């Protein structure tokens, strides 16, 4: 019954799952999410392909030892700079939700998860003077978007012996952008105008992954994913079909000592497949991306590795949707975090603090990301 309630909650929750906002999410499908649980975020994503609470590699589910549910909340504090000025922004998002567990009497595990795929949360303001009826009138334009695309994954993993684990996942990709354009005239003779539109997205994808343990201290993981395409409807009309990327990931995990584990991974996404579709829609296109992450986890208590480990890491990534045609943005981040388990390991709290720098030409952004994860193993 309790499991059923958790699953029901999971199914009803898609509308709240968006990751952080960014001015680099204004174009294209938005700012990509990372599908990471907080404990992987704390190590910059270096263990993402091995983390069963994250949604990057379905094969990682095989390491789940008990029914587990994970909820993530993320608060961001950003400083945005562009030629029009700068602003300090903040927002709260819920980027990752997961429920999974082992299958009884089988070397297998299944899981459901909702992850942020892309996010388009922003409000942009411009001020200008236009000539109306021969008189200059100051106007303020406000363009905002709320929403994004979510990734609902149904995945399973099967362990073969002690070394191999294979996994597969089916992804439902859906979401919406609620767009609003407002113009306010600094002349009481003019009414302000507000126009709304809603973009909705729907698509499916599949993923497969593998993990291989080489002895007790070293493991590698790989994954591949195809998301096909996403249908885009504006209000009630189909306006486009946008190709989504193939994703390839490769990672390693090494434990040089009993109290230290290090991980690194690279994920490549072929976003350029969406380039022609976005250009046809009047956008700036899309480019392939690469994300390289490395992190470590230091166990302060060798007997209880889950008790307040220290996690840290760094990552570099390029961004798929340029603000200026032909350019490509990138981001660099460093992270730090920890976690605790309590109630006989049945519950846990993870915390991560990440500092990221993003830039593309004259556009830049600095952010602190504070993420807080709750995991329950009933």
């Amino acid at each position, binding site marked *: 019954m309790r499991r059923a309630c958790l699953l029901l909650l999971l199914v009803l929750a898609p509308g709240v799952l968006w990751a952080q*906002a960014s*001015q680099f999410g204004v*174009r*294209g499908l*938005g700012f990509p999410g990372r599908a990471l649980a907080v404990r992987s975020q704390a190590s910059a994503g270096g263990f993402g392909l091995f983390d069963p609470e994250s949604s990057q590699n379905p094969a990682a589910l095989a390491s789940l030892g008990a029914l587990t549910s994970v909820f993530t*909340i993320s*608060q961001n504090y950003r400083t*945005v700079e*562009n*030629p*029009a*000025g*700068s*602003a300090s*922004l*903040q*927002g*709260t998002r819920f980027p990752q939700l997961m429920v999974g567990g082992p299958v009884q009497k089988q070397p297998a595990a299944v899981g459901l998860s909702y992850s942020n795929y892309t996010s388009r949360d922003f*409000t*942009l*303001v*411009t001020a*200008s003077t*236009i000539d*109306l*009826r021969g008189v200059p009138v100051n106007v303020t*334009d*406000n*363009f*905002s978007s709320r929403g994004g695309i979510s990734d609902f994954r149904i995945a399973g993993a099967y362990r073969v012996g002690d070394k191999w684990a294979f996994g597969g996942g089916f992804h439902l990709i859906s979401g919406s*952008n609620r*767009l609003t*354009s407002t*113009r306010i005239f600094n002349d009481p*003779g*003019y*009414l*302000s*105008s*507000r*126009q709304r*539109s809603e*973009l909705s*997205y729907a698509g499916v994808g599949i993923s497969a992954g593998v993990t291989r343990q080489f002895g007790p201290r070293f493991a590698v993981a790989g994954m591949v994913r195809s998301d096909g395409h996403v249908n*885009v409807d*504006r209000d009630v009309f189909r*306006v*486009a079909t946008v190709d989504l990327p193939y994703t390839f990931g490769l990672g390693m995990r090494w434990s040089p000592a009993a109290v230290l584990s290090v991980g690194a991974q690279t994920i490549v996404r072929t976003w350029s497949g969406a380039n022609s579709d976005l250009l046809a*829609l*009047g*956008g700036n296109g899309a480019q392939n991306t690469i994300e390289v992450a490395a992190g470590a986890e230091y166990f302060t208590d060798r007997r209880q590795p889950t008790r*307040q480990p220290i996690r840290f890491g760094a990552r570099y990534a390029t961004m798929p949707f340029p603000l200026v045609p032909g350019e490509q943005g990138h981001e660099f981040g460093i992270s730090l975090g*920890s976690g*605790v388990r309590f109630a006989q390991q049945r519950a846990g*709290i993870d*915390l991560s603090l990440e500092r990221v720098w993003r830039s593309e030409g*004259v*556009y830049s952004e600095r952010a602190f990301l*504070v993420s*807080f994860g709750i995991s329950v193993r009933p």
Partner: protein
Amino acid sequence: MRWGFGVMVAATILCACQEKLTSPADCPALCPGGTPQVFDTVLTAVVGADSSYTGYVQAHQAAAMPVTNGLEGFEQRGLVRFLARGDSVTLRDTLRGYTIDSVALSFTLATRDTTTTGLELLLYRVAPGFDSTSTYADVAPAFVPESLVAMVPISDTLNSGVVRTVLQGTDLSKVQLSPSDSGTLAIGLRLSAPTFTGVRIGALAGNNGPVFTTYVTLDIPDTGTAKLRNIALTAAANTTVSEASPVLDTTLLAVGGAPSSRSLVRFALPPRIRDSATIVRATIELTPVAPITGLPNTNVSDTIPSAVLAKPVLADVGAKSPVSVDRVRIPKDTLEVGATAVSMEAVRLVELWIGAAARPSSVMLSLDPEASSFSHPVFYSSRALDPALRPRLRLSYLLRFPFEGP
């Protein structure tokens, strides 16, 4: 360590759920879809489809009586008939006779030219048989010195309020009621002033009509005591007669007058505006055939300044088209004496013309207050040879924003 972790968790929770997403935008990079474009266009009324109609509000239905001494080249006079006064009063279930001590006639001054001094309201005794069809010529014989009841000076400092005169003694004979009058007093009003001007006197329809008050002493023989009473009678009817009636030109658009005229003007919105535009400003512009006339310098005193209204037509069936009474949707322009143009901000009105349940793109022009204004504006119609003189609708609008998708 555990405390520190707890503090961090608490801080995270406390700081969470705060949103601030507004940032400056640098276009075009951060302006997907571009910026909204405002278009400006001027539509003239549909040629030959505008008309004036007369007979909406009669002089006796007006909210006030305009009384002038030749302001517009002709004189306007007011007529008031009070309710009938009985020859006895009921006291303690008994009809009692009475003796008249004095009478008072009071009128409400609604509008005047505040710069004109030396105004006098002349009250004449007229036959109570007048009605809504009575003309200036019908009642003119009563406005002779022999019928003069009183000359009521209007204080130069009184901009609006009650003007009152009291008759007693021998003057009571001027308002004595005879059986042939059926106990009804009728008074004619005329304005005297050193210059051509006018005043607006409160009327029955405006709930501030004239009042005829009789102060009496009751004869009560069984007690031997005298009882003082007053008998206040409001107007039973009032109207205005004008020395000259305006002649309507069917090629022009007239509003106002008594009986009042209204003008129906039709516009044709282009489909691209009707179907998908967001109107941010709409101005109806009218060109008077001659500079606006009327009573000047009324700003301080005028409780109902003359204004041209453009009422949305709910169903276009010609002269009897029903119109909206929603004040938000009715633009108006207060008339200034000497003005050579009239314009009304009508965006809330034009909004009714677009969308799925669009109303007819027509307006009914009228004058407020009807049948009691000193102005009788006449505008060029769509038949004017010069298109610049025709009724115009100046629209500022935005088309559907080209939301980039995605």
